[in-house]
């Protein structure tokens, strides 16, 4: 088996091409975050081989005093906006992850207790937003929020963005929790009730601990989808609220993206890399212990 793999050059070649395509923009972001120039002019510098390396974009994220960083004053306003965008992104992501994980888990438990036929229908309903392209989901949510605005006077902003992030995250939580529910003993709930648990604590004390890995997977999905969302936020945010993605988009339409956002992106990516690496090490250790 191993020998066959070593000899399979076309497969390795395709793998390298695939990885190059996926990682090319990631690497460019990394390089751009350390270069001194503002935008398009950087390209000329890369071509000439003159790269002025700098950490100032990273520093600009952690200070409000830009005087030492040699950043043109007209860009300072943009960097302050970016900080608001980062704060907004995290507020939405943290709340939507928490709420959608709780709701998604309860919905999954509810769906699971039905017969197989009804369960299939409910899962069909659940999977619709997953397959639906972002632009369709975004447009439909926008229509609901326009209605909300007419009826309740709810203006588009943080609340509507949070609601829509919860909306598109729940199906992923349900999909992640369902396999875990399929694996636990169907009598878990009854056993807990017989042992004196109330209806609610039977769920929180018996079912939830046994499906915890599924819940964590679901929460990870919800977090990943929310922190990077662009299209749905674009449709539901109105004119005043923005997250990092919609802020990048509007900066680009103005023709200029401050490089601090490249630095922000590298930081987030590095944290994700460390988390993945550590969790890998842990699971490898577990496998070894099991063996």
């Amino acid at each position, binding site marked *: 088996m191993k020998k066959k793999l070593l000899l399979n050059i076309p497969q390795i070649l395709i793998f390298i091409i695939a990885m190059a395509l996926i990682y090319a923009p990631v690497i460019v972001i990394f390089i751009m975050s350390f270069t001194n120039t503002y935008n398009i002019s950087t390209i000329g510098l890369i071509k000439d081989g003159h790269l002025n390396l700098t950490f100032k974009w990273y520093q600009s994220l952690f200070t409000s005093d830009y005087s030492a960083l040699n950043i043109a004053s007209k860009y300072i306003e943009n960097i302050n906006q970016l900080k608001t965008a980062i704060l907004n992104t995290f507020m939405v992501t943290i709340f939507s992850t928490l709420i959608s994980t709780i709701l998604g888990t309860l919905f999954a438990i509810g769906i699971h207790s039905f017969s197989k036929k009804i369960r299939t229908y409910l899962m069909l309903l659940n999977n619709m937003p997953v397959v639906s392209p972002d632009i369709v989901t975004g447009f439909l949510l926008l229509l609901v929020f326009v209605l909300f605005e007419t009826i309740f006077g709810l203006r588009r902003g943080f609340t509507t963005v949070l609601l829509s992030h919860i909306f598109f995250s729940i199906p992923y939580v349900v999909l992640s929790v369902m396999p875990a529910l399929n694996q636990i003993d169907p009598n878990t709930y*009854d056993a807990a009730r017989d042992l004196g648990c109330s209806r609610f604590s039977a769920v929180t004390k018996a079912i939830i601990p046994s499906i915890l890995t599924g819940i964590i997977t679901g929460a990870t999905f919800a977090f990943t989808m929310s922190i990077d969302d662009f299209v749905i936020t674009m449709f539901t945010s109105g004119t005043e609220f923005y997250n990092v993605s919609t802020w990048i988009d509007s900066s680009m339409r103005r023709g200029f993206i401050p490089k601090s956002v490249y630095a922000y992106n590298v930081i987030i990516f590095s944290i994700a890399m460390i988390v993945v690496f550590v969790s890998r090490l842990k699971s490898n250790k577990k496998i070894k212990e099991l063996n």
Partner: protein
Amino acid sequence: MNDTLALTAKSANIKKLKTTRSYVIPYLIWCFIFIAIPALILIFLAFSNYDFSLNQEVTITFKNWTYVFGSEYARVVFWPAIGRSFLISFIVTIGCLLLGYPVAYLMHTIKPKYRAIIMALLVLPLWSNQVLKIVSWRTIFAILDLNSREFYEFNIVIAMISMYLPFMILPIYTVLAKIDEKVIEASYDLGCTKIQSFIKVTLPLSLGGIVSGIIMTFLPSLTTFEVSDVISNYTIVLLGNLIYNRFKGTGGFNVGSVFSIIAIAFTIVGFVTVMRVDKEGETLI
């Protein structure tokens, strides 16, 4: 005695069902608010002249549809955009499949230790901001001197493959991982060569993942607007741009709704196809 036991079991079962089944009620209300209501508004907007202004005389009309499908606008903007969208999405999907299947197969056959690394490599780019990645592709094309009108379509295809490739690889891998090794061994025992075994056993068994992967790459590439906007500097119009431009402009919701219904029609076709090969939705995550 047995009867009483059965009865107790039955009533316990009913009690269980009653309590956790009720969790579905808020879910259904939630879906009603965020799926059923907007769907109704969408249909209403597509078949009327209502534009959210007050004291407006609402009439039911097919005007929006004839505008989209049969006017001068249709000839100059709509049909070319649809044609272009389909061509680009088709090439992107084929490209993703040709690159994605071998990678998924490699993940399936490689040692678990390396498989975990490839898996991490595929998931990590999702943590890099998608808009910034598209902007970076434009930078790459500028460095390569490809940032001009005649290369825009090609550039869009490359950027889309780069973005959607993981969504092709992961569902195919999920399905490949479930194939029982014994089935493959049996095919060898029955005299298949490696290639025969792959074509006759592995490939048909992984069809569900291929279908999911195709839908999960085709639909996003058909409906994206940011890739074409950024890469082509707002010159190339695809189906997604049609919808987005209506939403951005004022009073374009009626025609925008028609475009959305078209996109939803494609989505439903895709959705039904995926659900036929994967009832549990396991290939969706």
